[in-house]
């Protein structure tokens, strides 16, 4: 005799389960598996909880402008070619756009500029940046000798790049389908048992700050490549830091950077929780939920040594983290033909 319990579905095949009074378990007539009632109840409970909506909200700091005394010492420039807008102090002259190399940059009026909340000061000098660039180009067989002259290397410029820093405590709740496979030999046969588990992990961590580039003039992937920045070393903003450097004005609102911050937080929460699921042959995430508490966003200027150089009609960008010295820049794509030539030369045994 069986008792109906139609609201429980078989985790193996999805058919309805019935309680077997003989087996004292939940039986599946369709696939023949039996399950402890408690396991089925727990699995069903997870299913229900997994349907709640995710909460990843942030609180944006209130906006402040430069005060009058500060404004008196600051100038802005606008590039007529690419539209980038920079802020510099009165002693720093900008003659060429650092983003596109155009010389047509015009002084403008500093109005409605967002005063950054904090700044990470430069720790790497221009000389260190130039050396890093020379090293970067060294020993690259496919790179033409004329690609980078000393004159061009001179042009590397210190730029404060605006970022939104997202800070929050994240709580995650993840479920995984897992299997544990064991095999033993039985004469001429291998007998393989695959045990299936539903695994759930809940936990959280604090993110000091996840930076997201707040300028469309700067390539976001390039900026992520020179991470991380140590934002514990950030100071309250003071225009004294701008001396000798250019500061890019942000043109992406914090709210528009939020999805990328969420994506990175979520990925870290999931992978950390997944790393605690051990002892299984396979682990497949089936549901991830992340909630944020104390989510705060601030604008911080990050130090970047930047060089844009044009070669045969294309622009190549090199960037160094002005705090840590992390240096990046793609040399790839200089000529498609170069790869063909390398290949042919190698085929002929020349190279």
């Amino acid at each position: 005799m069986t008792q109906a319990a139609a609201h429980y579905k078989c985790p193996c095949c999805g058919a309805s389960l019935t309680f077997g009074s003989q087996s004292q378990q939940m039986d599946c007539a369709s696939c023949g598996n039996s399950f402890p009632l408690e396991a089925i109840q727990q699995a069903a409970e997870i299913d229900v909880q997994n349907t709640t909506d995710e909460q990843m909200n942030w609180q944006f700091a209130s906006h402040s402008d430069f005060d009058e005394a500060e404004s008196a010492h600051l100038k802005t420039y606008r590039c007529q070619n690419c539209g980038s807008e920079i802020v510099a102090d009165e002693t720093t002259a900008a003659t060429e756009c650092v983003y596109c190399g155009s010389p047509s940059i015009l002084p403008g009026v500093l109005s409605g500029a967002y005063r950054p909340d904090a700044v990470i000061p430069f720790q790497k000098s221009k000389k260190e940046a130039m050396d890093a660039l020379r090293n970067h180009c060294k020993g690259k067989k496919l790179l033409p000798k004329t690609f980078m002259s000393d004159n061009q290397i001179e042009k590397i410029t210190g730029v404060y790049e605006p970022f939104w820093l997202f800070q929050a405590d994240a709580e995650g709740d993840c479920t995984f389908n897992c299997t544990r496979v064991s095999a033993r030999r039985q004469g001429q046969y291998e007998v393989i048992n695959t045990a299936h588990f539903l695994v759930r992990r809940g936990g959280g961590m604090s993110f000091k700050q996840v930076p997201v580039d707040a300028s469309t003039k700067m390539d976001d992937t390039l900026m992520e490549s020179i991470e991380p920045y140590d934002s514990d070393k950030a100071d309250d903003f003071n225009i004294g830091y701008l001396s000798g450097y250019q500061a890019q004005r942000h043109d992406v609102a914090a709210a528009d950077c939020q999805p990328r911050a969420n994506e990175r937080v979520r990925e870290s929460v999931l992978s950390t929780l997944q790393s605690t699921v051990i002892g299984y042959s396979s682990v497949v995430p089936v549901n991830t939920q992340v909630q944020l508490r104390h989510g705060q966003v601030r604008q911080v200027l990050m130090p970047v040594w930047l060089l844009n150089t044009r070669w045969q009609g294309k622009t190549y960008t090199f960037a160094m983290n002005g705090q840590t010295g992390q240096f990046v820049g793609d040399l790839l794509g200089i000529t498609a033909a170069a790869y063909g030539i390398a290949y042919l030369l190698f085929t002929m045994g020349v190279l």
Partner: protein
Amino acid sequence: MMKKALAVLLLLLLMVSPALAEMSRVVDQADVLTDAEEQLLEQEIAQIREKYKFDVLLLTMDSIGDRQGDYYAADYYDNNGYGVGPNHDGICFFYVPQGDRNGNTVFFVKTGSGERIFTDDVDDEIANQIRGYMRQQNYGGALAQYVLAVIDQLEESRAINRATRLLPIFAIAGLAVGAAVAFSFKSQMKNVRRKVGAMSYVRDGSFHLSRQQDIYLYTTTTRRRIETDSHRGGGGGGSHGSFTSSSGSHHTSSSYKM
């Protein structure tokens, strides 16, 4: 044919579009690849999946105990949901560096259309192409060459004219070396990458686990006849098999001592 091979090679090298964040196709548990090699291989495989609707899994393991390598790889492929389309089309390259039973052996495990496209002869040829790299323990080179060979074979199976299999052997060798060299140049030239996650910004010691539930559900059991090992090994020749994995799907396999 030379031209076609070159075209395929250039295509392969010029692919720089970032793969969507999803399941890894390079699962290097034995840690024989560098991170840069893994990322490049991931990118190439993402392109294969898109262009040929065919999956490639590159799997290495430190040890799988006494299990038979091709069965293990097939289970891994099935249980983690690899393969494209209803027949889970794809191929798995599986390698265990050390061990009595599977040590230094390369397995090609094929599923769905992979069983038809990668015949025993094709597998033998591919195994010969990568053997040089494997013996030098140049695993990045071996897998780059393997992925190239897979593309070549997929391209060929698409072509109507099967007569193009007459690629002279020196061209294959040149392609192999040229590709590996160009491959390493490419990784030299490119270092701008998107970050995954934000682990470097997690406050030290802030991680806490508040819930931990491991619920046992059920067990499935399969029995399989063990292939005799008598014709395995022996001077680098391959052995070929056909079997059903524990999830019930069909696979064929080739294995080679390197």
